[in-house]
Structure formats: C-alpha cells, structure tokens
C-alpha cells in the first residue's frame, strides 16, 4: 500500500482488529449503492472516505433543489446533473484514488442481476417498494449480503438481509420479514410525506458502517462472532430513539429464499407491483 494511504487511513488502521488486513479488504471490496438520495449520500461519503476501492452508484434521477435539504453530496451548482454523476464528483473530491462507477438507470428485472453480480455487497438506499423487493430477490439469487436502510418522516429502519451466519447459512431476506407490502392507505409511502434530513443521515451512515464491518469482518461480523439478524428501528421523536429487535430466521415457505432458484425466477418474472397506483416513484431516497 502506498505511504500516502498509510497517512490517509492511519487513524482507522490503528484501531483494534483493523490494521492493514482490514484496509486491504476495503480496498479490494466492490460495494453497490442503489439510490444516491437521502440514504445514499451519507452512505457513499463514508464508504469512499474509508477507502472502499470500487463503489457503484445506481440512480436514474437528476439533482433537484428539493433534494438538497438532505442529499448532502449534491450541491446547488449541480442541479440538473444526474445524481450518480454528482455523487461521483463529490466522492472523487474526498478520495481520488477510488474507482467510482455510475449507473444512470433505475434497477429493473432486466439489469438487476448483471449489475449486482459484479459487486460484493449491496446497499438498498431506495425509496421504492417495488425496487426493494427486486433488490432483495436479486441479492438472494446472487448470494450477496444486503444492507437495507429506510427513512421517512421522523423514522428510520436498518437491517442486513441475507446475512452470513456462523452456522454457514444465511439470515432472512426482505420477503421473509415483509411477505406483503403495507397497503397504500396505511402509511402514505406514496404521497409526498416528507422526511427529516438527519434521519436519512443517521440510517445512511449506519449502512456504510455496516458494510465496512461486513467487508472488514469487524465486531458482530467477525468470523468468531455470532451475528444475529436484527432490525434497528429509529425515531427522532422516540424515547429512546433507537431499538434493536431480534428477528426471525428464514421462512421455509419464502418464495425467494425458501427454495433453490426461487429468487432468480422472481427476478426474471419481473412482476414487481407498482404499489402506488401504477405510477413509478422516484428511486431516490
């Protein structure tokens, strides 16, 4: 590793259990971030700063002024740029040595498998229910860990789906926990309901941290430890703000992870309901 990198990453390399091995794992890691919005921006920042060598960014949208209250990689001057390119510019300013791959497209049943297959870990930073099921199915089909974040209003959620377990198996997928999407009338995912910027910030940063820990095998993700599938829930209005919930193992009858080949069939069939009255939502968070 070049001397410059020892200087740049020194303050994390001297951490217990980190060192050169973890830094090299980060450098050779390939992490895909789907969505360069409220969750994707902070996640991308910390992945790039920490030295993740190859970072893919999937986003079909352009930077709009209404994004700027929370999407901290984008700037007033880059309004109208594709978000994937705006984010790439910001990350290269932080850390010019990385390989940043913009994918200016939404993820769909045709491109999901080819795009995801060239990465090691996926971060779901979208705000589109259909895309969330698609990403989860594709990660099951390709055996990738999925660090999933969500944020709306004052609330956030974080979970790792398809988590590698010490037993050799994998934790539940998105469908195991959420076999059917919430109904539209129930939670207003589809209208414009608003979101507090720091809520996306906290969850996005935690997604980056989780990905770094998975790559570097740190803490609960060390091979000697027993990471258990959990769902972290957060509310800026709550007291306490954070709760960690222990969730179920895989469902035996899960259409995606319950049988060999199920997930790939789901992706290829491509019947991801347009949950919100047929109108595709913005992909960006």
């Amino acid at each position, binding site marked *: 590793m070049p001397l410059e990198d020892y200087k740049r990453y020194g303050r994390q390399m001297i951490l217990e259990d980190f060192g050169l091995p973890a830094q090299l794992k980060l450098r050779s890691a390939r992490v895909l971030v789907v969505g360069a919005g409220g969750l*994707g921006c902070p996640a991308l920042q910390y992945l790039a700063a920490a030295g993740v060598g190859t970072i893919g960014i999937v986003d079909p949208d352009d930077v709009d002024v209404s994004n700027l209250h929370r999407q901290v990689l984008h700037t007033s001057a880059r309004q109208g740029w594709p978000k994937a390119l705006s984010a790439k510019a910001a990350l290269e300013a932080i850390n010019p040595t990385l390989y940043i791959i913009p994918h200016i497209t939404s993820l769909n049943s045709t491109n999901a498998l080819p795009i995801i297959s060239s990465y090691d870990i996926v971060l779901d930073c979208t705000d589109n229910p259909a895309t969330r099921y698609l990403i989860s199915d594709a990660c099951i089909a390709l055996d990738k860990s999925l660090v999933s974040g969500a944020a709306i209003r004052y609330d956030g959620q974080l979970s790792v789906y398809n988590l590698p377990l010490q037993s050799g198996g994998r934790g539940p997928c998105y469908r195991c926990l959420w076999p059917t999407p919430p109904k539209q009338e129930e939670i207003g995912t589809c209208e414009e309901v608003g979101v507090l910027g720091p809520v996306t910030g906290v969850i996005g940063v935690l997604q980056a941290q989780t990905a770094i820990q998975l790559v570097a095998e740190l803490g609960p993700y060390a091979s000697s430890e027993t990471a258990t599938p959990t769902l972290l829930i957060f509310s800026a209005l709550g007291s306490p703000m954070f709760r960690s919930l222990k969730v179920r193992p895989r469902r035996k009858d899960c259409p995606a992870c319950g049988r060999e080949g199920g997930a790939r069939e789901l992706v290829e069939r491509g019947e991801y309901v347009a949950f919100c009255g047929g109108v595709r939502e913005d992909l960006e968070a």
Partner: protein
Amino acid sequence: MGDERTIKIKLTFGGGVEVLFSNKRNQTIALPAQTPASGTQPSRPADLRYLILWMSKNLLTDRKELFLDGETVRPGILVLVNDTDWELEGELDYELQKGDEVVFISTLHGG
C-alpha cells in the same frame, strides 16, 4: 395499579401502524388476565391471539382490514414481544406476562 384480573401490557407502534391506533406510538393497557369463556371454549390465560382480538375491539380506530387478517395480523406487520420476533416466541400462542411489551411495526420504504 390494576387488579389481579388484568395484566399491564405495553404496546408500541411504528412504521405507520400507529395511524390505526389514534396515532399514538405508545400505550399501556390493562388486559384481562384470562380470556372470557365462550360456549365450549374454556377460559385460558391471555395470549397474543387474545391480545390482537382485544386490540381490534378496544383500540383499533378504524380500517380493521389494515391490521387484521382473520385472527392474526396482516402479513405486512411484524410483531415483536420484548424486542424479539413473535415467531421465535410461539406466535399467537405466546402467553402474555405482566409488563410484556408488544411492538407492531410495518416496513418503511422511504429514504
């Protein structure tokens, strides 16, 4: 603080489920400790099956179909007892204990 015939249970709602329950995120209820006997069904200690029935009668403000699916909750809602997925605790058959906290949450999609 409640008599012996009821047990105090903490209910927490999140991810949008709270809108079905007067928009309150936290409630503490006094649940009958035993289910009422009915016809051939003898009384039994209160379990999650009974809690869900009781909630739908006493707390649910409207739109039952957004919460209930038969005697259980809609598959889009995750139920946790004392921070653990109810599937690990016996689901509907879990017998409630004094002071238990039951969380009902729905997935968030935004970001």
